């Protein structure tokens, strides 16, 4: 009567099931937008003026717990705590510890630099299901060039070791950019040296709030992205299958993810949104109740326009990862083509497409 089920397929199946029922099983709490590092490509961090007047006030610990309690009543199970840097909140444990008694599978994203012995001890008393830490490089020079903070490489390594010493489940990852892509292999080796899983991602998006981030300077070219993908067996296989299946994605649905059907995000100011890259419709759970706010998100996604005619008619579409969030950031509408994705899709098609495929007229 208790079944041991493989974790990843089970989680996927639960999300499918939840999406049909519009049950918000997956939630992100962006506890703060403040960060101790200053990565140029970041899409969240608020810089210097964060304490300046006019900046919205972040939710208090009790407000987060109020939202969590209501979200739980509505079926939330997988909860990600992220920032900014969550450990910059002095009251982090006033939020975290009660959450661990509410029946959530909790993941914590952090840059690791603030995980001292005493923080690690406190986490180990009621550990999350997983901590994910970002590596910015395999050397202090590269890491600190990106983070802009001297000493952050050593601090992050110490944080990782503090967690490992307490058997807290850990995953390492890296966001690749022009400045650290050369150290990908070395980062992978670092992770393997610790016996920890590692994954990398490299699709850098702009900031949804359109404040200055230097994403263009950091982004890899489409060819470089596709080259990297080819080194990652899982994504290369997926793309080969896409090429073989010739199946064009479900043509009239714009959202192909679980956002707004099984997933949501709450930003530091208490707005309930579709996802971190699509900060709409800014429903207010603390004012109208979580259920009503979630329904606003569901409605927002349900009533999104179809992809643009260009995308619907596009021959590279099976190779494209455009979604409404990318469209909004890069084209200002929920459905327009995203030039960066067009380039990637074209490069993928060149690599994985069948030779017999007629190439699109340029």
């Amino acid at each position: 009567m208790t079944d041991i089920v493989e974790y990843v397929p089970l989680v996927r199946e639960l999300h499918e099931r939840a999406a049909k029922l519009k049950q918000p099983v997956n939630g992100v709490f962006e506890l703060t937008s403040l960060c101790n590092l200053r990565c140029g490509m970041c899409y969240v961090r608020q810089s210097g003026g964060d304490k300046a007047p006019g900046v919205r006030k972040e939710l208090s610990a009790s407000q987060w717990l109020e939202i969590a309690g209501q979200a739980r009543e509505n079926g939330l199970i997988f909860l990600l705590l992220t920032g900014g840097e969550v450990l910059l909140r002095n009251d982090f444990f006033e939020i975290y510890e009660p959450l661990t008694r509410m029946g959530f599978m909790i993941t914590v994203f952090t840059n690791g630099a603030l995980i001292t012995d005493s923080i690690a001890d406190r986490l180990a008393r009621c550990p999350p299901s997983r901590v994910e830490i970002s590596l910015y490089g395999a050397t202090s020079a590269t890491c600190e060039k990106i983070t802009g903070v001297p000493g952050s490489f050593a601090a992050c390594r110490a944080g990782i070791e503090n967690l490992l010493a307490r058997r807290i489940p850990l995953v390492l990852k890296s966001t690749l950019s022009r400045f650290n892509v050369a150290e990908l292999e070395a980062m992978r080796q670092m992770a393997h040296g610790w016996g920890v899983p590692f994954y990398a991602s490299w699709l850098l998006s702009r900031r949804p709030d359109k404040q200055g981030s230097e994403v263009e300077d950091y982004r890899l070219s489409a060819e470089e992205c596709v080259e990297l993908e080819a080194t990652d067996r899982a994504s290369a296989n997926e793309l080969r299958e896409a090429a073989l299946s010739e199946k064009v994605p479900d043509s009239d649905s714009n959202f192909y993810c679980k956002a707004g059907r099984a997933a949501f995000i709450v930003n530091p100011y208490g707005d309930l949104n579709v996802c971190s890259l699509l900060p709409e419709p800014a429903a207010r759970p603390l004012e109208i109740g979580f259920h009503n706010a979630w329904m606003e998100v569901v409605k927002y996604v349900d009533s999104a326009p179809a992809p643009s005619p260009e995308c619907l008619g596009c021959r590279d579409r099976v190779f494209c990862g455009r979604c409404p969030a990318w469209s909004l950031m890069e084209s200002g509408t929920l459905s327009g083509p995203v030039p960066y994705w067009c380039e990637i899709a074209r490069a993928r098609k060149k690599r994985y497409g069948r030779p017999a495929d007629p190439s699109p007229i340029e």
Partner: protein
Amino acid sequence: MKRKDELMLQKVGGQALLIPLGAKVLDMNGMVVLNTTGSFIWELLAEERSFEELVSAVVERFAVEADRAGDDVRTFLDDLIRQGWIAL
């Protein structure tokens, strides 16, 4: 017997899951899927229950014979005891 407070039942549609709480997260490394009878018994175990009480509740709820219900309840309890999830 009664369930311990180290796991919490959550549902997605008809699917019931036991989510580990507190330090239990480290031992379990995941979550447990319960079938309908399992989750029914788990809910009953919020209170102190005897084996007989559980069996007759299962008989009543699922309209099965007492023997079959007895076997099911025993298998389930064995699982829970092995994992240390109930206090006898």
